[in-house]
């Protein structure tokens, strides 16, 4: 009876028909409903709303932080495709990522299109996947709000050794907002990364990585960025992994050569250390410490430290409410504090996040 009902549902509700084989399996044939939909890309929409209040007048308000549409699917047996459209502040729609990556090449993934540069840990994260509400100071100041993100090609090799060892090199368009902003339209920037991950136990991993990026700036000189990162992560393997800790540390050094400074360059460096703890299935707490020094790229912040604390209520994988409080201190301005309240909703078939 149940099988008959399933067959009837399939036949009438989805405009196709079903049959049972000798083992009682339901097989679905033809039609334009289920079959067509199953070939559609996985689609998800993330909407982030942000309320902010703080000592700086411009930081107060209720806003759409970002709306993000993600489409992904295997294109054919050879390529996988991903398109991420974003609208920051609910204004104009932009392409954050749009790329194809290979499925049929052994050992290496080749990627072409627009994508987030594989530099460090934070640069790869979309806004909704940030461990805290805002991005770390060093990423924001050195790479800008748009992050290291451009059109190009990338090769990602899984080195065949007994631990996880990933080597990535990319050549990207150097004319981008943020880290390079090349003078010449045809300028190409390079990004390289090496990453290792070790299982310390079934539950604990240690990941370490180093990154490098080089490209032309708007003064026809060269910018260099060097990064190093280390992550220790513990996720309970009991049940649904309701207890988890991620301790992330990232260092980025940038040197911007200019007409005035010559090849000695303007040097900036920064570091952040964040800890996020899942204390229960639905509750997270977190903190992040930021430090930034001699930031010639952003003269408003010559030496800056920031501390942020986070509490998050996560009813399911598809929604979260996060409250963050932070204090920023610089040697150029009075201290600034800020409170952020964020609502994240995610609809549809959201692809899995990388570890």
């Amino acid at each position: 009876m149940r099988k008959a009902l399933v067959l009837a549902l399939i036949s009438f509700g989805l405009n196709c028909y079903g049959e049972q084989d000798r083992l009682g399996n339901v097989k679905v044939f033809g039609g334009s409903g289920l079959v067509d939909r199953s070939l559609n890309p996985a689609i998800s929409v993330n909407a982030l709303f942000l309320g902010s209040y703080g000592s700086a007048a411009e930081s107060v308000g209720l806003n759409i932080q970002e709306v993000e549409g993600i489409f992904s699917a295997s294109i054919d047996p050879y390529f996988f495709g991903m398109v991420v459209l974003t609208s920051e502040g609910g204004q104009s729609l932009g392409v954050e990522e749009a790329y194809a990556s290979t499925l049929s090449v052994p050992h290496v993934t080749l990627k072409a299109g627009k994508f987030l540069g594989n530099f460090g840990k934070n640069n790869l994260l979309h806004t909704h996947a940030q461990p805290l509400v805002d991005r770390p100071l060093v990423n924001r100041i050195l790479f800008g709000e748009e992050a290291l993100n451009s059109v190009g090609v990338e090769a990602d090799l899984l080195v065949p050794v007994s631990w996880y060892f990933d080597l990535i090199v990319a050549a990207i368009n150097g004319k981008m907002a943020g880290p390079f902003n090349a003078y010449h339209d045809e300028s190409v920037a390079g990004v390289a990364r090496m990453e290792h991950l070790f299982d310390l136990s079934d539950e604990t991993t240690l990941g370490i990585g180093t990154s490098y990026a080089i490209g032309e700036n708007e003064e026809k000189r060269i910018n260099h960025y060097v990064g190093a990162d280390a992550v220790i992560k513990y996720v309970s393997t009991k049940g649904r992994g309701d207890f988890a800790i991620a301790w992330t540390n990232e260092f980025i050094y940038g040197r911007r050569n200019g007409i005035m400074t010559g090849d000695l360059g303007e040097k900036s460096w920064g570091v952040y250390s964040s800890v996020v703890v899942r204390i229960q299935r639905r509750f997270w707490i977190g903190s992040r410490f930021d430090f930034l020094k001699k930031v010639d790229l952003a003269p408003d912040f010559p030496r800056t430290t920031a501390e942020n604390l986070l509490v998050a209520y996560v009813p399911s994988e598809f929604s979260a409410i996060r409250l963050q409080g932070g204090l920023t201190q610089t040697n150029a301005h009075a201290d600034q504090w800020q409170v952020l309240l964020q609502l994240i909703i995610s609809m549809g078939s959201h692809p899995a996040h990388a570890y």
Partner: protein
Amino acid sequence: MRIRALLILSFFLCGRSLFADLKVVTTTEDLASITRSIGGELVKVTSIAKGIQDPHYVEAKPSYLVGLSRADLVVSIGLALESGWLPLLLRGARRPNLLMGNPGFLDVSTAINPIEVNLSADRSEGDVHPFGNPHYMADPERGLLVAEKIASRLKELDPSNSRKFEAQYQAYAKGLRQNIFQWKHRLSKFKGTKVIGYHKTFNYFFVSFDFLPIGFIEPKPGIPPTAQHVLSLIELAKKEKVKLILMENFFDPKPARTIAEKTGAKLLILPAYTGGEEKCSTYEAWLECLVSALEKELLT
């Protein structure tokens, strides 16, 4: 000398795949146990999810890619159980033969008839599986169909050992059939027993052994229980004279204990998968754990 050094280097870089037997990665310990029984010494099997772990929520650790990048076969439960992590790992493994539709990928749900198919489901119903409940390994008869499917694929991948795989499969299936006959006999006196579950993990077991689930501690799949829902279950359990609450050994037992205390029902906390307890380290041992625990609890 140089050639010798190159050969030694390539031996290590290739992960010795030229000299090893079939390398199989399964998503759960249930599948790993069956594959080991059929493959014997001709296969090397590892499972991604541990028996104490809920396979819906496995983290896609990059270190899994090391094993997957050298695997000849990935065996998956399917029905979207692993959809949150397996596609990411399979693409990351950079081994085209393991991608869906290739000989190196086996979704064993194609061997069975799923229950609770709900193609019009949406997320307001919780963590639903539109193509059916994926916890079918709790039904040993479906486990037999899965074993046949795995044996068939091993024979395809390594035809030179086809006869050995067939012989080992026949021996395994014979033993499992005998066990099924005995398990059914031992639990036959409890047919129609009303039970409350936690998640829908044991629903295939209930169908196979004629238990009657009348409610679940999760109000919706994947959604933690509320006080109001627990109260409604207490009322239901009293009204329906429920004698047994059966839950997985990795969930918080507090709500189940409350219901048991208020209604007098017995609470049985059991491993949800093979390897969920030390004594349940094989598929048959896990099913024996379930049957013997139920038998003991319901006889007393």
